């Protein structure tokens, strides 16, 4: 309906951006389409109008929202600026950083909302419980900040033994009350769940991002056949806007091209293999040594700090922060060492970069792991100490109670029997009192043992802080100071500082990204024990963003060998995922393995941390639920579920593998097919060459009409040649593109010896369809045929939309330019090329169906085409005129006959049947048009084929007037003006059902068609051919009887209608 028409127009508007036209033309088309939309939107029914208005409103709102969202994307301008200076490689680091920032924000919200806030609001206030009070001996040092000499020390002391240790920052602060506040918030449960949710969320977001990336890369990097092409055409980063960056980019391009040349030539490095191998082995040994060394150092330092702690009551600043400083130092220094080592190896730069990254990652992981293992070791010893304490205390208790009992028992005999009962009561009271005091004593003693969870959290936080300090320091020292020195001292130095030794610091994307990953790993590792760690990380990342971007813009030069951001995207993400997994392991291990501290934290008093879940299920859920849970967690369910999972994984993997195989096979097939197509097409081409010469003039004209851009149509001489001629359809045709690529410039002499009638030589169906596909183009020795095909495809969507559209002349009016022309052209082209068109239609059918979307986008083009030659209404008749007379001159006739020679009996029958079937259609459809059609058929019987269509054209006009009163909306004057285009489709449309249903001869759906008839021009054309096609098919493949049957069927219909 009209609504759909408007939809079409809107799609034109929507897709106009994809058209390679100058802006002026786009605007014109847009304006036109807009006018239509605005004009006819009011004609819709009320509900439709509301719908449209609603959709509009929605669109507007979404646009506004989008704009707002864009506004709130943090650092967008900053990143863009960096991108413009250094290219997208450097920017990818910042985008990655921003992405991590987003993740951390979510983590912070999760922990903040579900753990920290409830504890702050509803938890026991500070100082009320033991875990929330600072022990007296620590209180002194916590308040006595002035005695400590530096801010860092103050900070570290704060974290380590000060207020901060007993704050929401760490695990130990949280109370173990099952429900807090008036609402009964289950804090311990929430703590556990959030701790797990942090990992779950990270996993999910990471995997989703990776899946998205890989989907994108699947779409693109399917085959690596284009190394040189990409290196040439995609090499330049069009975002670069800085001469230095441009220079280095140019150098990088030269480098990469040289490298790939050398890859092709396979020139060996002119070093003997033995030396190379030994060098590489040496390098690897060095790397291994440094790795083990770093791990050992970390372990040693942790061990030492532990011992120091036990020995000395008061630790110096260095001793306190030794561990994290050492770890940070190693993470800073070792990568550079690896880089030096990598120079020994003389790998291909890309390989060496990968090696470097892998080594650095291993180093980081080793650092983290040795740290956490050392910490857990310490935790182990701590918990064993606690248990020893515990056993001590119990024995102490036992001895005390023993002694009291002794005391009491000595007293007992002195007392009379009578008092015995009361005495025993007092005795018991005393005993319990004693017990209490003993317990209290013990408690105060054990309070000094810090809970290990807090300890681990502290270490992680400290590590993170020290790491931040070192990062800032390295940026300032290595980049900034160096940059200053190089810039200002280069004049007074004996060598060129800028190009020789110190140079400017390079921005090492890979290392920096790895550092981010490492940092995130620390956060994940410590998040469970220190809920505020993500929040801290958010701050850190913000700071890092500003500092780095400033440093990059002021004192860095881009890296020479940019690790291609596009490829590395998933590489980085994979590393992050790896990191996440490995950082999750220790936490999970600690949760499962170790007993939570007895006197601090939300899980105190439990045997294991995860007991909270089973406890909650047992206590707070209905009985059936715990029953169900017990079933679910029993091995009976878990094992099969695991098995099922494995099976599923295996199944999916095998499917993926088979899909991959199919993919490669299909690609191979595609190649083969395109080659065989090439041959066949060339045959056709040579066969149809002969008539082309005489067709040149009309060809040109139709070319112009079908031309896409004015520039092209302005230069017809070029298009004259047969070769260029074939290009234009190629441009327009979608699915045919790949084929026609090969067709468009076939070697004529080569194909000259091709067989005369390919249909006969290649009877197989596939080839046949293939040929038929191309006959549309190759058969277009006359340009008209080509344009026809073009229009067919192009207008297909239109017809689709218009399928049920009620006849509306106004709409037609606006569309007219584009419709009339194709109609006219096709009419004549049809005459000339029946034989070709018969086969050709199939393609269109397929295409229309498959590429509906694409052809939709194509629409505006034709639109434009239409408005180019004829923006004035009056032009059309003229066009029609000049086209109508043409067919006879066009010398399609020889061609036609040529075709007919191949299938003369069939074609004749076809023609006959065509006419016959054409007649009944209108009759069945509409009684008003009968007149016309009868006349038409008479004409056709009398005249040649071309004559038939010419007449039909005129007849159309007549019919239009006949129809006018019938269509309700249209006014008389509009009918006069737009009658011609309007009718045209109608008549053809009549033919359509008979075509499609000719086999069954059921033509009943007339009423339906009547409604839809008006907009069917293109379909009409198409259907005509289709009809022929079907007939041809019938005649060819099946017996003639079927055709006759068909014909007779239609005849019957005619009779009945009359």
């Amino acid at each position, binding site marked *: 309906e009209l609504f759909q028409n408007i939809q079409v127009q809107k799609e034109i*508007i929507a897709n106009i*951006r994809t058209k390679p036209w100058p802006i002026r033309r786009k605007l014109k088309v847009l304006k036109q389409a807009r006018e239509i939309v605005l004009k006819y939107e009011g004609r819709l029914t009320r509900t439709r109008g509301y719908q449209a208005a609603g959709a509009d409103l929605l669109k507007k709102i979404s646009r506004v929202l989008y704009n707002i969202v864009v506004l709130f994307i943090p650092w967008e301008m900053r990143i863009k600026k960096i991108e413009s200076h250094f290219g997208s490689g450097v920017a990818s680091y910042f985008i990655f950083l921003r992405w991590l920032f987003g993740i951390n924000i979510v983590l912070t919200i999760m922990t903040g909302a579900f753990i920290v806030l409830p504890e702050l609001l509803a938890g026991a206030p500070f100082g009320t419980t033991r875990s929330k009070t600072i022990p007296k001996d620590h209180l002194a040092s916590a308040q006595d900040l002035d005695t400590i000499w530096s801010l860092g020390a103050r900070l570290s002391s704060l974290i380590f033994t000060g207020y901060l240790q007993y704050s929401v920052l760490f695990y130990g602060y949280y109370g173990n009350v099952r429900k807090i506040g008036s609402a009964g918030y289950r804090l311990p449960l929430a703590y556990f769940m959030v701790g797990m949710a942090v990992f779950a969320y990270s996993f999910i977001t990471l995997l989703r991002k990776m899946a998205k990336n890989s989907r994108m890369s699947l779409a693109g990097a399917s085959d690596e056949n284009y190394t040189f092409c990409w290196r040439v055409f995609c090499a*330049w980063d069009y975002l670069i806007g800085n001469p230095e960056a441009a220079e280095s980019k140019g150098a990088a391009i030269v480098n990469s091209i040289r490298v790939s040349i050398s890859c092709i030539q396979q020139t060996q490095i002119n070093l003997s293999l033995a030396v190379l191998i030994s060098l590489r082995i040496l390098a690897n040994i060095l790397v291994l040594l440094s790795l083990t060394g770093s791990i050992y150092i970390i372990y040693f330092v942790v061990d030492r700090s532990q011992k120091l702690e036990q020995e000395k009551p008061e630790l110096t600043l260095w001793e306190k922060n030794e561990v994290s400083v050492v770890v940070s130092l190693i993470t800073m220094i070792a990568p550079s060492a690896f880089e030096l080592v990598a120079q020994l190896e003389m790998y291909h730069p890309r390989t060496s970069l990968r090696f470097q990254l892998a080594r650095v990652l291993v180093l980081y992981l080793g650092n983290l792991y040795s740290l956490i293992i050392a910490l857990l070791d310490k935790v182990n010893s701590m918990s064993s100490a606690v248990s020893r304490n515990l056993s001590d205390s119990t024995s102490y208790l036992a001895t005390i109670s023993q002694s009291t009992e002794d005391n009491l028992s000595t007293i007992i005999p002195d007392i009379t029997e009578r008092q015995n009962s009361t005495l025993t009561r007092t005795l018991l009271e005393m005993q319990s009192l004693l017990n209490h005091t003993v317990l209290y004593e013990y408690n105060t003693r054990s309070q000094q043992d810090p809970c290990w969870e807090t300890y681990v959290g502290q270490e992680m936080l400290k590590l993170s802080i020290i790491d931040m300090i070192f990062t800032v320091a390295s940026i300032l020292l290595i980049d900034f100071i160096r940059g200053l020195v190089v810039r200002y001292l280069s004049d007074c130095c004996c060598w060129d500082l800028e190009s020789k030794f110190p140079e400017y610091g390079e921005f090492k994307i890979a290392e920096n990204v790895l550092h981010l990953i490492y940092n995130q790993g620390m956060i994940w590792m410590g998040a469970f024990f220190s809920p505020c760690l993500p929040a801290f990380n958010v701050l850190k990342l913000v700071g890092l963003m500003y500092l780095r971007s400033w440093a990059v813009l002021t004192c860095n030069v881009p890296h020479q060998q940019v690790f291609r951001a596009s490829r590395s995207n998933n590489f980085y993400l994979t590393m992050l995922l790896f990191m996440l997994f490995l950082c999750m392991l220790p936490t999970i291990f600690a949760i499962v393995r170790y007993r939570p501290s007895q006197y601090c934290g939300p899980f105190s008093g439990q045997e294991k941390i995860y007991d909270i879940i089973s406890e909650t299920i047992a206590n707070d859920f209905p009985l059936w639920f715990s029953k169900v849970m017990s079933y679910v967690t029993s091995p009976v369910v878990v094992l099969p579920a695991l098995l099922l999972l494995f099976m599923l994984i295996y199944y999916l993997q095998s499917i993926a593998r088979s899909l991959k195989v199919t993919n490669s096979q299909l690609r191979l097939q595609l190649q083969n097919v395109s080659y065989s197509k090439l041959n066949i097409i060339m045959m056709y081409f040579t066969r149809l060459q002969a008539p082309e010469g005489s067709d040149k003039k009309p060809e040109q004209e139709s070319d112009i009409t079908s031309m896409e851009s004015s520039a092209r149509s302005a230069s017809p001489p070029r298009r004259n040649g047969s070769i260029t001629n074939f290009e234009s359809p190629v441009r327009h045709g979608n699915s045919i593109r*790949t084929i026609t690529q090969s067709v468009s410039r076939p070697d004529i002499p080569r194909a000259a010896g091709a067989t005369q009638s390919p249909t006969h030589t290649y009877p197989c169906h596939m080839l046949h369809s293939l040929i038929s596909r191309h006959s549309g183009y190759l058969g277009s020795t006359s340009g008209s045929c080509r344009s026809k095909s073009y229009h067919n495809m192009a207008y297909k969507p239109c017809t689709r939309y218009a399928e049920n559209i009620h006849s509306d002349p106004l709409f037609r009016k606006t569309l007219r330019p584009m419709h009339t022309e194709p109609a006219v052209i096709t009419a004549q082209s049809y005459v000339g090329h029946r034989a070709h068109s018969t086969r050709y239609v199939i393609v269109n059918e397929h295409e229309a169906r498959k590429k509906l979307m694409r052809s939709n986008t194509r629409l505006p083009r034709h639109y434009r085409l239409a408005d180019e030659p004829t923006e004035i209404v009056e032009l059309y008749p003229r066009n029609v005129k000049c086209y109508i007379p043409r067919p006879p001159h066009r010398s399609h006739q020889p061609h036609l006959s040529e075709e007919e020679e191949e299938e003369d009996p069939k074609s004749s029958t076809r023609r006959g049947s065509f006419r016959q079937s054409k007649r009944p259609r209108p009759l069945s459809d509409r009684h008003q048009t009968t007149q016309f059609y009868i006349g038409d058929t008479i004409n056709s019987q009398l005249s040649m084929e071309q004559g038939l269509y010419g007449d039909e054209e005129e007849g159309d006009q007549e019919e239009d007037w006949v129809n006018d009163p019938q269509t309700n909306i249209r006014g008389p004057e509009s009918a006069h003006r737009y009658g011609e285009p309007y009718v045209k489709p109608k008549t053809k449309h009549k033919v359509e059902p008979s075509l499609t249903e000719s086999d069954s001869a059921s033509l009943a759906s007339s009423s339906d068609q009547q409604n839809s008839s008006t907009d069917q021009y293109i379909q009409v054309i198409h259907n005509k051919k289709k009809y022929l096609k079907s007939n041809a098919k019938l005649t060819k493949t099946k017996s003639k009887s079927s055709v006759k049957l068909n014909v007779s069927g239609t005849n019957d219909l005619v009779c009945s209608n009359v």
Partner: protein
Amino acid sequence: MYGCFAPPYFPHTIIKQLHKGNLIANSCLSSLLRLFHRYRDLALQLVPMDYTNQPEVRLPYELIGSMPELKDNPFRQRIAEVFSEDGEGNMTLDDFLDMFSVLSEMAPQDLKAYYAFKIYDFNNDDFICKSDLEKTLNKLTCNELTEDEVRMVCEKVIDEADLDNDGRLSLEDFQHMIMRAPDFLRIKTI
């Protein structure tokens, strides 16, 4: 964001109309105005503030090519030529807006591929042939490659991307090739 390309005439009244008619989005509006001012800033004495009468103003290539967006681009002259109506690199406001709309991040890939082809097609014959490739390479690498290397790379490129073996790349070849390039897909290069 569909209407996000520029109207040709820039007086504010028309922009307002367009805006009212929902032809352009808010963000577009500001970017359009910004672009117009950038265009105008290139030659204040040449470009009038009022575009109601659609004055035929062309800025010479020297001015266009000196913009920071283009001045380090080895293909700046080609870009200007492709987008200018006269093919000489002298740009009207329309051409200017056109260029930026295509070079912008939001331009569709098809469009980019099309114009990329135009840019690399130095002799405007709708094919990228060997001479075009050589020019491209020399511009790209600042003539640092030797002749042998250039020849070899050209051969390789044509070998890889030429699907119909006619020794040159048509638009279809080019699109086929470039739409598969990860760089082209992810980082929007052109």
